[in-house]
């Protein structure tokens, strides 16, 4: 029972990373029509950013939680302005290829300077230890990760689905020319949206730094699972990404308990099953 609950918790934590990453992918895809292959590399940069802030400037976890997404988000916006904006109007597969190239560059550079081994990042003092819930022992940091990312996901959902800014953004996805005619600066909005999506990835990176070690390739394999999550959920809705992300994390955790051999593959197997039954994905609109 203890082990099952522990795996469920691990699953929830992985699920929160899946949710944050696929949410960022969905936001970027909605606005730029690009599958951001560099998302895993940017997630890794978020974790490294937290590591640098601590070891070079002595800036701790709490500030890193704010600063890393801002720094990496700014990097993302620079990337959008210098590279991605030239692809508008081209087939969206070019976006996939370009961001794949960017991911190779970023990961290669980090591997050059840090090798492939991990760097430790300590859990902040306030979140050390755990609480005994009676039926299980909950490490505080892990509970924090799940709760915090849930809040961030819901805030992002609120921002996009319920605010004026989000309404403009959704309108610009449907018809950029018309929205421009209303006097809204669409290119700036695209840049900011990319920054937001990248910021979410970097935030996931900071959250994962104390749990997983900070490694140059930490995002490389994760991103493929996230792609499978995206195929399963479809990119139709923001809420869909969040729910699918968490749900798949939990399913993965359960598999690790009941049939560990399949834990690496269960998400992909689910993807195949979903594609056979409902090709557009669980929450996706038919294409």
């Amino acid at each position, binding site marked *: 029972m203890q082990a099952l609950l522990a795996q469920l918790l691990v699953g929830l934590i992985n699920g929160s990373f899946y949710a944050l990453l696929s949410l960022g992918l969905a936001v970027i895809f909605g606005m730029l029509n690009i*599958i951001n292959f560099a998302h895993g590399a940017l997630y890794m940069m978020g974790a490294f950013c937290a590591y640098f802030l601590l070891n070079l400037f002595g800036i701790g976890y709490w500030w890193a939680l704010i600063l890393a997404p801002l720094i990496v988000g700014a990097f993302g916006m620079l990337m959008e302005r210098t*590279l991605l904006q*030239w*692809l508008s*109007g*081209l*087939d*969206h*597969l*070019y976006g*996939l*290829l*370009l961001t*794949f*190239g*960017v*991911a*190779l*560059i*970023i*990961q*290669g*550079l980090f*591997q*050059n300077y840090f090798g492939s081994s991990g760097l430790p990042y300590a859990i902040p003092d306030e979140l050390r230890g755990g609480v005994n819930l009676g039926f299980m022992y909950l490490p505080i940091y892990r509970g924090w990760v799940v709760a915090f990312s849930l809040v961030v996901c819901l805030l992002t959902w609120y921002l996009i689905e319920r605010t004026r800014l989000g309404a403009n953004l959704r309108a610009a996805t449907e018809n950029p020319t018309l929205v421009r005619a209303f006097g809204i600066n669409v290119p700036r909005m695209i840049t900011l949206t990319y920054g937001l999506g990248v910021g979410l990835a970097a935030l996931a990176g900071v959250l994962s730094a104390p749990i997983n070690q900070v490694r140059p390739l930490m995002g490389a*394999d994760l991103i*493929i*699972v996230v*792609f*499978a999550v*995206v*195929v399963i959920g479809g990119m139709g809705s923001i809420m869909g990404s969040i729910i699918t992300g968490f749900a798949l994390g939990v399913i993965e955790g359960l598999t690790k308990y009941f049939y560990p*051999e399949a834990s*690496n*593959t269960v998400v*992909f*197997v689910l*993807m*195949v099953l979903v*594609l*056979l039954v409902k*090709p*557009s994905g669980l929450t996706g609109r038919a*294409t």
Partner: protein
Amino acid sequence: MSTITQNSVPAPTTRRPVRDEMIAFALMTIVLAVVPFTGVYPFFVMQGLCFALLACAFNLLIGYGGLLSFGHAMFLGTAGYVSAHALKVWELPPELGIVAGVVAAFGLSVITGLIAIRRQGIYFAMITLALSQLLYFIYLQAPFTHGEDGIQGIPQGKMFGIIDLQHTTTLYFVILIGFLIGFLIIYRAINSPFGEVLKAIRENEPRAISLGYKTDQYKLLAFILSGTLAGFAGALKVFVAQNASLTDVHWSMSGEIVLMTLVGGLGTIFGPVVGAFVIIAMQQYLAGFGQWVTVIQGVIFVACVLTFRRGIVGEIGHYFKRSL
């Protein structure tokens, strides 16, 4: 939205440029046939030929069908493992070992094709990528692949009982003939009614459907043909490298295949061959730079997508207004 190969298709010529292609093909064959008698390291060229066939097979799918498969390494790796296992454990002769690998790649491409063609565009790319990662984990755990170690020390044997593949020049010509057969199959497919329908689907799928073509069947057929030929390349590669390992199934290999085709020219006939040799040469000569090779590959990716979408052969063809 423009299709992915729009920039690589040269201006339409009035007459079908078969003659240019014949001359280019003859030149390529002569150059490749002379190589063993020059000072070039033959194993480097053999490896290049295997990757060239792989890239051509991949190009059939994206360049003519408009389908970006980001998991083509799974066919290379699967055929490699099956051929290696057949040669080493079942002790089959080389020709049957190759057949075993090709049949495995065929079966795999039928299954994955049926799943992947249910979605288009980037979803297709992501599905193929996820499927290849699924296989990666299966091969990591399956006992017959020996996990991280891979299958090593594969016997090359005697083909049809007489052709000794341990002899380097003999092996070279076997690989070269294999490459040429694969290349001609792809060339034939492109220049057939089937190829024309594929191009029509690439340009405008709803229109092809309205003309009465069952586009899913055509796409599936292209996928199976491409996957099987990629498997053929994988089976040949076993004889060159004498091992089968996880690197051939890893998704970074799929990225390299895309890069080779992109550098040479998407949707050109000879582009993937040139691209494969450029990338293999780069890896060979830059091997001392460690991870910088990854960075350089990334830069090439970005440069190709931003400024150089026609690729090397595509640019040459565009300059001379020829289709190559």
